């Protein structure tokens, strides 16, 4: 699992966006909202990411109903949640350590 960390920003936000069932367009919109438009996922980027996350078993297809042409929805798996938690821990450590920089500048 370790070799996948750090997650790319795109993967991190996609995992976050599928904490509840979500479809492709919904993921794009949610990530845009969360980042105030800074991260806008292109269709190719998102498609590739979903394929690879599915292959790794970090997300799964939640619902698929071709008859009613309802959009395919994805949901994070337990393995995905584990990876997300590990990544969050890493990011927290990063932020904690970033505090040293602030201390340094106030001491000056």
């Amino acid at each position: 699992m370790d070799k996948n960390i750090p997650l790319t920003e795109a993967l991190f936000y996609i995992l976050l966006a599928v904490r509840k069932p979500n479809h492709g367009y919904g993921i794009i919109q949610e990530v845009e909202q969360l980042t105030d438009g800074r991260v806008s996922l292109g269709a190719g980027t998102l498609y590739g990411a979903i394929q690879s996350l599915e292959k790794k078993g970090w997300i799964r297809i939640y619902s698929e109903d071709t008859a009613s042409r309802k959009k395919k929805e994805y949901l994070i798996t337990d393995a995905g949640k584990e990876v997300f938690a590990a990544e969050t821990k890493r990011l927290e450590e990063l932020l904690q350590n970033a505090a040293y920089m602030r201390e340094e500048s106030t001491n000056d």
Partner: protein
Amino acid sequence: MIKFRLYFDKDKETEWLNKLAKEGLAMTGFFAGFYTFEKCEPGKYIYQIDLGDKLFAINENYREFMEENGIEIVQSWGYWIILRKLASEGEFKLYTDVDSSIEHYTKIRNMFKAVTILELICFFIECFCAEAGNTWAIFFTILIGILLFVLLKAVLHTNEIIAELKERKGEVSENTENKISPLLTAGLLMNSAALIMQDSISNPIKLGVQILAIIFMLVGLTQCKGFTKK
């Protein structure tokens, strides 16, 4: 309306399609270099070009995904897929981060590499047939020779794009020679000249020139580090 173009650079091709779309011509089909266009409201569509996983076929998941996102698959050709989206629905970009862009261009580079190697094999077969005096083979040898040159340039150009992207990620790219060796060009020209003039020069001379040409080409190819590196 039909326009003929040969593109070996998908970014330039995309630019061209978008420029025409802005002027009111929407691309609707492609066949072997022939693009068909229909009149449209100027700026109605935005075009993008992707590289798929299947030859002359589109992955069902891919098709479904794009359709769900309001993207229309206009045409697939070889591994290439031409897509468009209504401009009124906002920006249309395929690859928006460095990692996925690197992946995309690496796929393109590897496809060009595979085709180059295939053409190289064809080239030697045609050379051999041309040797036997087949006039068509002479024509094809020269044509494939030019194509080889163009393909090799496409590989090197794509390498440059990948190196630039990797630099943005903070990776230091090794300085590779990204120009086509003059030896390769010289070899191709010598071989063509020998084949065209084969009736007016004696056989041993022709054979000598061709062997030299082939040596030049092979050495020239190995000098293109951008081609041999992974």
